[in-house]
């Protein structure tokens, strides 16, 4: 099955997110109150690795394992990034979770986050419904 590799990468990612406690509501509160370096260290060092990796890819143009050229197209620039970003930020501080951590929290035994996940799916659906009427 060709998608097994993504399942395995997901397991790896979920394990790191949980072990590093970035899925914790407490840690997110600590971050938004600027009372610990932990979350900033996580995001900052992840970015350093990400930036170096992408610079290397841009310089050496490696192809993927399947021989394709790597696609680094960025996302389109819209007002939606600012408005939607702020709306998500409000939800991030309330639930203490972003989408990845919601899945990790459920796996980690916080089954109540199934409810947060369903609400997030509903929010996505309502966005799809209203998309044409929203400023972008």
């Amino acid at each position: 099955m060709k998608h097994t590799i993504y399942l395995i990468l997901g397991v790896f990612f979920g394990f790191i997110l949980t072990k590093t406690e970035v899925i914790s509501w407490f840690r997110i509160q600590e971050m938004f109150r600027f009372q610990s370096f932990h979350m900033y260290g996580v995001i900052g060092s992840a970015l350093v690795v990400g930036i170096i990796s992408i610079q290397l890819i841009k310089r050496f143009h490696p192809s993927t394992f399947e021989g394709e050229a790597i696609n680094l197209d960025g996302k389109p620039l819209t007002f939606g990034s600012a408005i939607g970003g702020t709306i998500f930020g409000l939800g991030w501080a309330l639930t203490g979770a972003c989408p990845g951590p919601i899945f990790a929290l459920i796996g980690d035994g916080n089954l109540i986050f199934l409810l947060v996940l369903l609400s997030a799916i509903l929010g996505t659906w309502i966005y799809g419904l209203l998309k044409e009427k929203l400023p972008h």
Partner: protein
Amino acid sequence: MDFLNTPWPWYIGGPLIGLMVPLLLLIGNKQLGISSSLRHVCAACIPARIPFFQYDWKKYSWNLFFVAGIAMGGFLTYLTTPADYEISLSSETKTDLMSLGISDFSGMVPSEIFSWSNTSSFQGLIFMIFGGFLIGFGTRYANGCTSGHTIMGLSNFSLSSLIATIGFFVGGLIMTHFLLPFVI
């Protein structure tokens, strides 16, 4: 195996998170992102003739395998975490949260807010249902979340990702410092 049952410091976890960016690109030409999976779920289960959900979601099913994996990764951690697990939170945060009425600091999330018995209260409604709603609505509106914008997009020097990330923090700071005291 100490590293399996103790929390990891930022300088271990952060770089490993960043490593997901080149791994996904090199393995399958995939840009790291999680919130799209919520859209694919809508497209697969409840498209309801909405144009935004009319696309071949199966083309992106790798993302659904990825998030299923994330949940399994969480479960692996669950198996290796002691039952009385408590995060070593900064004492200032603890004091702040205690003054907001939080007294149980065990586990990953405050059980006083996030519990099945709290689902019918105003507080539960705001934190779990409305909070989740804002995550789904906001990430799609912004075209990405912390992984897609803050990690993948910023690593790629994308301006829309910088704007989105600033938005994430503006929203989070407004909620934490101005709104939270009224709803907690």
